[in-house]
């Protein structure tokens, strides 16, 4: 088990999205991913949130379709995740080889 801390979060207006990917490229902590097998009512893929958001507003400021509402937590929220963080998992897989 590993713990990832979020100091912020976003509310995503899924049906407003046109799937342009600008938010995913803008996010400095890489916590936005586009859907690969689901689309919204307009037929576009849309972003989903992973643990680790810092509430920096990069996504909301770059989004042409006003999809994001950004919050900062008063006390950070911790998420228990089953997978280890990517760096340590990369090291362990190299160790096996």
């Amino acid at each position, binding site marked *: 088990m590993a713990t*990832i801390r*979020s100091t*912020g*979060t*976003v*509310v*995503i*207006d*899924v049906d*407003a999205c*046109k*799937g*342009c*990917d*600008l938010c995913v*490229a*803008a996010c400095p902590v890489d916590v936005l991913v586009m859907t690969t097998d689901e689309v919204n009512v307009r037929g*576009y893929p849309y972003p*989903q*949130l*992973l*643990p*680790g*958001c810092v*509430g920096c*507003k*990069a*996504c*909301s*400021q*770059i*989004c*042409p*379709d*006003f*999809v*994001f*509402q*950004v*919050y*900062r*937590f*008063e*006390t950070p*929220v911790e*998420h228990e*995740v089953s*997978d280890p963080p*990517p760096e340590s*998992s*990369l090291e362990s*897989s190299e160790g096996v080889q």
Partner: protein
Amino acid sequence: MTTRSLPIIESTSAPTQAAKLVDDFTPGLINQGAHHLCPGCGEPIAMRLIMEAVEELELAQKTIAIFGIGCYTAYSNNLDVEVLQALHGRAPSLATGVKRSLPDSLVLTVQGDGDMVNEGLQEVLHTMARGESVTCFLLNNGVFGETGGHMTAATVLGQRTKNSLEGRTAQEHGYPIVISDLIARLDGAAYVARGAVNTHTNVARTKKMVKEALAVQTAGLGGSFVEILTMCPTGWFVDTLDAPDYLNDNIEPIHRFGVVLDRSDDSRHHGAGR
């Protein structure tokens, strides 16, 4: 290479934990967030930062926005400020009349490069040369987006458009007009800057330029002008994700980012009509 398999966080409603709202879906001065502009368009991002700047400076009650004609005209009936619609290219002249009759108002124009640099180049040049205390915004994407994506006078050499499919050439189409540098040569202009909306850091930089331009107008120092480079992935024939880099690699080397002219510290400089 391991793939990252983190849990998706439910994000369709506001958080239940104590949290502070730092950015809402749409800025307070834009009525309706939904629009019919293309995916990846830079113009809503530019409209957002302009209206956020007006709101943060607490100037909404005295603002009169004057729109040219282009894709961004979708916002002319969607703002919570007074709006006038100009004929194609004539927004700076209309702004002159409004500002001279209502000198205490904050008058800003929103035009595209087709509207300003092709259709109404003389209007903006004369307005800035006279030093009218108005603020002109140019959303420059290098194409006439609304009427199909053909070349404008600001299209850079080599850029593909609907009527320069092999790229604009100097021999066939002539050279582009670098409008901000042209306006910065005019004595009436007090503040000229060029920003962009291709990254969130450039959005923040551009908002500072917009605020500075509005402050120059409020101080009556002369004409203020901010050019904002915006993405048009549809008109550029590129993917939405590639458009910010396309802007950076192809357009920015000609239309350079930064403050081109700043006379806001020069107390001897003053605008006309005040």
